[in-house]
């Protein structure tokens, strides 16, 4: 099984904290990919497919997120999510 690791950085819009609705959009996007994906912010790391873990990051608007994906289609997943983060609203 092909495996690789990819890491991307993306910054939330200043006015958009990663609260319930944008977090739901992010999790739905992450769940489209088979890769294992994590999001780190504020010194914490969350499973990108778990809204409860994402919400527990407490990421405020303007926070830089570090998205790390491994496994099948990891680079595609990391690219897609890093592109989505600045567009959350």
């Amino acid at each position, binding site marked *: 099984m092909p495996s690789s690791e990819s890491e991307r950085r993306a910054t939330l819009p200043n006015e958009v904290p990663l609260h*319930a*609705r944008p*977090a*739901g959009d992010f*999790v*739905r996007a992450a*769940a*489209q990919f088979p890769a294992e994906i994590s999001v780190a912010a504020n010194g914490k790391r969350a499973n990108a*497919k*778990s*809204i*409860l*873990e994402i*919400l*527990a990051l*407490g990421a405020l608007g303007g926070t830089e997120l570090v998205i790390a994906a491994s496994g099948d289609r990891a680079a595609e997943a990391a690219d897609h999510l890093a592109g989505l983060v600045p567009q959350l609203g």
Partner: protein
Amino acid sequence: MDPESRNGFVGLVLVSHSAEIADGLAKLVAQVAGPSVPIVAAGGGPDGTFGTDGARVLGALREAAGSAGAVVLMDLGSSVLSVRAALGELPAETVAQLRIADAPLVEGAIAAGVTASTGGSVDEVLAAAQEARTVAKF
């Protein structure tokens, strides 16, 4: 809402002693999870008081047990008892489509709703709900 798309998504049943809690939570989950996930709220007693209504719970379970199945979340006490009683009145093939989540109601419903909205299976949605027992809030 597109009735055909509803068929593919696991649903939720929300049982609470309060109609306002069940209805409000259903609206909140719909905001976060989007319109695809069927949600049935069964809150309050038969006469509009706080409590549980066995007939309403039974109807909610019947309504929710579609082709993709449904996860049932409850607040506590007689909500749990009324769900158990209702399961005893349903045919085995309906019961087989339902999963009962031992999870905090609000957090579990949000997690379950989002996982359902990703197209997750009924067991994946159950696992997401029950993850709410252990994931720290901050």
